[in-house]
């Protein structure tokens, strides 16, 4: 017991294993910290910053920051929540998110976060960037919806570790580039995995959209994160 790390989130005490990130430690203690780019089992990259928390006056991404002894973390404070809301809104204007026409609507984590934060309209102007839709033998890559979370980059690779999805360019031109050859060789299971790993409707397995009726979708009735919050 003695090597456990004591920490608090919004006053609630928790115990963590050494090496756990703030996000993991909070989750293990039934505390939800919203995340988007993070995916269970993948190395965190801290790209969306939605999981930002404040500790000792400093801001940090809870998906990458290890929890330390005695850490006092601000998670659901109005200040932290306001920044998160802004970041979610930023994602909505950065890409072209036409929810009504999206295969992932209802199961989309970006949309679910916006529902959780009750976003009625983004504070930022829509940028309407010009983006492409790329077709591969077994799937489509809808760049309009991509949030550059790098989940596919990290989670979908060849057996010998080659990147099928890779980051391309930089700045606001950053996008996902697919290795055509390797994409062609992907198995059906791997394509399904890619679609599942994508938090939004950017990677679409062909003939697999709109399968779940409205009312039965993941986030129709339960806010994202409630599975963690309801555990304890």
């Amino acid at each position, binding site marked *: 017991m003695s090597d456990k790390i004591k920490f608090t989130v919004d006053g609630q005490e928790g115990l963590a294993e050494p090496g756990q990130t703030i996000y993991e430690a909070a989750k293990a203690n039934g505390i939800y910290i919203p995340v988007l780019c993070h995916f269970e089992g993948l190395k965190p990259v801290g790209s969306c910053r939605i999981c930002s928390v404040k500790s000792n006056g400093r801001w940090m991404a809870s998906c990458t920051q290890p929890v330390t002894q005695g850490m006092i973390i601000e998670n659901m404070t109005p200040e932290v929540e306001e920044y998160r809301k802004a970041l979610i809104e930023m994602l909505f204007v950065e890409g072209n998110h*036409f*929810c*009504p026409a999206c295969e992932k609507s209802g199961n989309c984590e970006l949309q679910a976060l*916006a529902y959780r934060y009750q*976003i009625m*309209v983004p504070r930022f102007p829509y940028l309407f960037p*010009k983006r492409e839709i790329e077709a591969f033998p077994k799937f489509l890559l809808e760049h309009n919806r991509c949030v550059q979370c790098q989940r596919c980059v990290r989670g979908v690779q060849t057996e010998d570790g080659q990147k099928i999805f890779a980051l391309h360019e930089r700045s606001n031109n950053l996008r996902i580039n697919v290795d055509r050859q390797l994409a062609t060789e992907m198995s059906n299971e791997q394509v399904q995995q890619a679609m599942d790993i994508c938090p939004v409707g950017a990677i679409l397995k062909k003939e697999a959209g709109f399968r779940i009726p*409205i009312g039965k979708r993941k986030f129709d009735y339960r806010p994202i994160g409630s599975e963690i919050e309801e555990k304890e």
Partner: protein
Amino acid sequence: MTKPVIATASLAGCFGCHMSFLDIDEKILNLIELVEFDKSPIDDIKSFTRPVDIGLIEGGCCNAENVEVLGYFRKNCRILISVGECAIMGGLPAMRNTIPLKECLEEAYIKSLTVAPEDAFIPNDEELPLLLDRVYPCHEIVKIDYFLPGCPPSADLIWEALSALIQGRPIKLDYQLIKYD
């Protein structure tokens, strides 16, 4: 006390939001008790007859007429609400926003398979409202006071928002009320 006055308009939308509004079912009877309608496709009043308290706008602005109507609403309504995805962010019509207007029109009126060669021209009748370079969310053109998302927003959301406004109480947003589809 006089009843609050409501006006509605559908700009670049599909009337789905108006349909959803009517979907409040028998509550519409309560609503009529509470409010009066002015300019609206629902009662077919074509122009404003008095100052309006709440204006509901469905659809974004895709042409010059939309802009004019929206401006007209802003002038005549104390509170203006963007109702639905199209009013809020352009909605599906805004899917053209990343394609040049020329390409859109040529695709529809010149290159389309169903266009007979002799009819291949871009409509230019003066009666037609001129298209804008892209579809604009309403709040980029005039000040909008409230936003009700959804495609369409559920009847319950519209009802809750309107009754809260009329009663002057804060709006209560249950999780299920906010949806973008």
